[in-house]
């Protein structure tokens, strides 16, 4: 193919207007599933369970089994709807979405169709330069997640060329809320960063509500990004593609940028965009075609006869509204004041999508500056190197514990970095790693003094200088002592002791 695959991004934006739309699936962290009392793998208790251990006859769709709605999941869904500025439907119903695929054993998914629980809302999203954009929300509806297929055989582990698939139904029936936006116009060259900021905002909202773990790497929060382009001046919307499998904030941004460039190249060459599902590949930074929208998308929705309508009382809605946490926008304003960071420092945290991490680290007892330092420094650096989100590397509790160990003098900065490496490698909590790796600062002056005396004896000229009052000469000895102690000493204390010993 001689045609270039991608058009330069700026050129693409010059020729075409991008129109975005998002479908974000949020797995709720209720104790049990949406329609059965099986434990929910979308929370820490259930995460990582052995295949097909978190299931009941309902989750397998066995004959005679009947679904019963989880009341907590309904309350969580209403809270989320309210936080998205939506109206809550006085009456909403479940519907069957019929399709044949082994990820659900019933041959249908229980979802909501024409009567979603929440509709018509708006979410305020902040761009990197601080500009605020309102993203219009079409609806938020309740449904159940599907099981997980592992494709076996074939070169890449993908469905193409696979010999057979293995199905684990643990995830089948996990409560989901699907948040659907209306078409988003006017993002222009900011479209990729708006995509990231939107998903980041949804993540912040559900975490603040405490209704989902929202860990994208675990699939608790999944984004399908719809992108279409229309030539400048054209009224009619272009054909859109839906990119799935975007499971980090970073890849949401990259996937939207890629689709804009890809579609622009095709359109500019006189081609047409095929309406299809595409898959994002984190490793290559490209999307590839999935199945085209076709007959198979005829889902023949009809009201779920096994379930009754959900009709939340006004009292319940108002009770949940009163319990809503502050919005991300208000939270940002408050934290900025509380922490006293500069605009630049604060915005950098927001743009890195780490505001919740830093704020939870502070809530867990760390000083704001220290929390910022670790998230924006070591953790962000490692995340960039690995192409993942920093939030996947450590928890706010772990970082707060690390900060506490530094504050207590148990760890120097240098040792703390080694402990953090251990945390990232999954070796346990900072305290456990300090113990296991023997990393604590040597606070035993005896051991330090021995090392200092040895270093001073080895460098008599330095000793003479210190005795002459040239205290900056102590630096050379500090280096030698720290080396001898393999970094596990507090440099300030070493310096104090050197000056003391030099006078003896």
């Amino acid at each position, binding site marked *: 193919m001689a045609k270039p695959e991608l058009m330069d991004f700026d050129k693409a934006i010059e020729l075409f207007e991008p129109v975005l739309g998002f479908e974000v699936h949020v797995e709720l962290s*209720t*104790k*049990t599933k949406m329609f*059965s*009392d*099986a*434990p929910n793998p979308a929370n820490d208790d259930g995460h990582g369970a*052995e*295949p*097909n*251990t*978190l*299931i*009941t*006859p309902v989750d*397998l769709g066995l004959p005679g089994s009947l679904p*019963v*709605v*989880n*009341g*907590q*999941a*309904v309350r969580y869904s209403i809270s989320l709807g309210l936080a998205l500025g939506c109206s809550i439907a006085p*009456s909403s119903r479940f519907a069957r*979405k*019929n*399709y*044949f*695929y*082994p*990820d659900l054993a019933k041959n249908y*998914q229980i979802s909501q169709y024409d009567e979603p629980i929440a509709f018509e809302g708006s979410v305020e999203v902040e761009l990197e330069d601080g500009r605020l954009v309102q993203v219009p929300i079409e609806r938020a509806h309740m449904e159940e997640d*599907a099981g997980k297929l*592992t494709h076996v*055989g*074939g070169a890449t582990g993908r*469905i193409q060329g*696979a*010999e057979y*698939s*293995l*199905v*684990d*139904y643990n995830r089948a029936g996990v409560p989901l809320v699907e948040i659907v936006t209306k078409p988003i116009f006017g993002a222009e060259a900011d479209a990729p960063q708006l995509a990231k900021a939107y998903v980041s905002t949804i993540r912040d909202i559900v975490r603040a509500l405490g209704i989902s773990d929202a860990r994208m790497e675990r699939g608790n929060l999944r984004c399908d990004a719809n992108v279409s382009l229309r030539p400048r001046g054209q009224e009619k919307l272009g054909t859109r593609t839906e990119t799935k499998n975007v499971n980090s904030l970073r890849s949401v941004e990259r996937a939207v940028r890629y689709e804009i460039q890809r579609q622009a190249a095709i359109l500019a060459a006189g081609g047409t965009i095929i309406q299809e*599902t595409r*898959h994002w590949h984190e490793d290559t930074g490209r999307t590839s075609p*999935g*199945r085209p929208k076709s*007959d*198979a998308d*005829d889902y*023949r929705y009809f*009201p*779920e*006869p096994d379930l*009754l*309508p*959900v*009709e*939340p009382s006004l009292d319940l809605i108002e009770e949940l509204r009163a319990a809503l946490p502050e919005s991300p926008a208000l939270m940002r304003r408050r934290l900025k004041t509380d922490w006293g960071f500069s605009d630049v420092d604060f915005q950098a945290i927001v743009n890195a999508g780490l505001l919740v991490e830093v704020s939870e680290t502070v809530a867990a007892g760390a000083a704001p500056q220290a929390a910022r330092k670790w998230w924006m420094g070591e953790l962000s650096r490692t995340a960039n190197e690995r192409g993942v989100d920093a939030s996947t590397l450590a928890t706010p509790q772990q970082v707060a514990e690390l900060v506490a160990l530094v504050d207590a003098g148990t760890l120097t900065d240098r040792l703390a970095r080694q402990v953090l490496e251990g945390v990232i490698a999954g070796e346990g909590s900072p305290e456990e790693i300090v113990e296991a790796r023997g990393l604590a600062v040597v606070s035993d002056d005896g051991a330090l003094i021995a090392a200092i005396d040895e270093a001073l004896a080895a460098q008599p000229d330095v000793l003479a200088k210190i005795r002459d009052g040239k205290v900056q000469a102590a630096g050379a000895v500090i280096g030698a002592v720290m080396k001898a102690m393999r970094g596990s000493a507090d440099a300030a204390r070493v310096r104090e002791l050197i000056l003391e010993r030099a006078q003896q």
Partner: protein
Amino acid sequence: MSEITTEQVAHLANLARIALTTEEIEKLTGELGVIIDSIATVSEVATPDVPATSHPIPMSNVFREDVVGATLTTEQAIAGAPEHDGSRFRVSAILGEEQ
């Protein structure tokens, strides 16, 4: 008379993964037409101000407490599976993507 066409029946058969011969499609188109016509008589009395019924009993808000109950063991779960790998169901690779 109903507007069920042979194309619609063929389409539904495809969605339902049922292989039908041309003769079967012809026959079913006629039969489905009769059924649809019979049901259509309902619309003669169901004016727009009559709310749709999805459940015969006028109830709502039947919820379950969020409390974990008994689960199947993996052995029980896969007991009826024609093929499995000891803990997971084994199915033919189906070209198509998860929904």
